[in-house]
């Protein structure tokens, strides 16, 4: 069984949600993760808060926040166990981030320990 990382990508990280909305998303996210953990397929994961975020450019210029020229940003990721990429995609489909228009989930197999990378 391989491990896949499911990356939550927000189309526009600068959008501000209300505290109630944030709380509702958080709860839905916990239920989503709980559902994966209940199948014994959860490995690890974390949210990535926007506050105190920094971007370091190739010229070593440091800017505040992940949003400069590009608005898209990563809100968090989880690592799951899955028999195939299709199974990992099924997990990703359940993520509440997808309720936000333009948001996407990126599904990537983890290379560590696969004997090639």
């Amino acid at each position, binding site marked *: 069984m391989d491990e896949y990382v499911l990356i939550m990508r927000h189309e526009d990280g600068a959008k501000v949600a209300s505290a109630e909305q944030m709380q509702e998303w958080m*709860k839905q996210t*916990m*239920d989503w*993760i*709980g*559902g994966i*953990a*209940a*199948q*014994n397929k959860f490995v690890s994961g974390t949210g990535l808060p926007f506050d105190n975020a920094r971007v370091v450019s190739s010229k070593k210029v440091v800017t505040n926040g992940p949003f400069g020229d590009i608005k898209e940003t990563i809100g968090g990721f989880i690592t799951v166990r899955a028999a195939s990429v299709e199974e990992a995609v099924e997990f990703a489909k359940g993520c509440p981030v997808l309720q936000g228009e333009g948001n996407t989930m990126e599904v990537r197999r983890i290379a560590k320990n696969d004997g090639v990378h």
Partner: protein
Amino acid sequence: MTHQELIPHLFRTEFSKITAVLCKLFGADHIEAAEDIASETFMLAIETWTYNKIPENPTGWLYAVAKNKAKNHLTRQHIFTDKVKPNLTPSEVTTAEIDIDLSDQNIADSQLQMLFAICHPIIPVESQIGLALRILCGFGIDEIANAFLTNKETINKRLFRAREKLRIEKIPIAFPGESEINNRIDAVLTTLYLLFNEGYYSESKEAVVQEELCREAMRLCRLLIGSPQTNTPPVNALMALMCFHASRLKARKGQNGELVLYQNQDETLWNQELITSGAIYLKEASQGARVSKYHFEASIAYWHTIKEDSKEKWENILQLYNQLLQLDYSPIAALNRTYALAKVNGKEAAIIEAEKLKLIDNHFYFMLLGELYKGIDNTKAKAHLERALALAKTSTDQQTIQRSIDLLK
């Protein structure tokens, strides 16, 4: 108290104390000798007290006899000269040639150190529980066999192998070092958790044995809390969990010994004192950065001490299961989480999640599906319950499932 009542009572409280102190003194090589001396002490009490009157201080009498027997053993075996003496400072040797310290402090220390030795990861968990029951709880071989639903020979063999292991691996009867104490406490907690569950979910018909197992697990846990080195948040969390569960021991047994399910329990039978103690331990457990699985399980158990259903209750339980499963997956937690989900988001949503679990060897899985389909599709509900019935191994479970099926008709 007559001697018929007094001796079993003292046996329960004193056998394990004498054994632990002697084990500590003799070392892991001579555990059986320590048990034998404690047993012989009680044999002598039975003989003597039956014909003469009971001494004024029965415990003191037992300690004095045990001390003498231990001294004889040490002299005979040359343990004292070879083993004990080299470890004593010269002053200790001169002031007391052989001092067998049965003070409360030394008893508690010896029991704790023995607990760490018994729960060493090198010993199989089943044997750990057996040894703990024998040495730290003073259970007889037949009582242990009864608790495990097996026979005396099996238990004797298991204990023999465990003692051998302690001896061959030279497991010290001592506190683990600073650097490893947290890991070792985890192993001890696992054993106490299983010991408690052995009692709580035991199939043994004898309610007394079950309660005794739970009580002993709690007593040993309290021993850990009583020592500053081992009074950690996870220990308090486990203690809280056991208090909350134990509060329902009376309510979950029907008149004929049958299991009464949570929703059918008479909550006036719940032990409020234990619930209050549990809350205090849980508060104590929250002082610290580390969150163990016992923290989540104790918090879940806390919510179950509130009988009334509310959105808040099940919402909290669901979130706690979500967190517990991320930390430590178990099929039963997965099933309970799905039950909580049904309470919060409705049965339809829970059925979708339940069918992903695919725990097809587990009768609780089909019991849950049967429960969820009830009122939505009774034919499916019945089919699931029948599958559960076919998988159930114990008569208690079979009866519970059969009652569920009958209610559907």
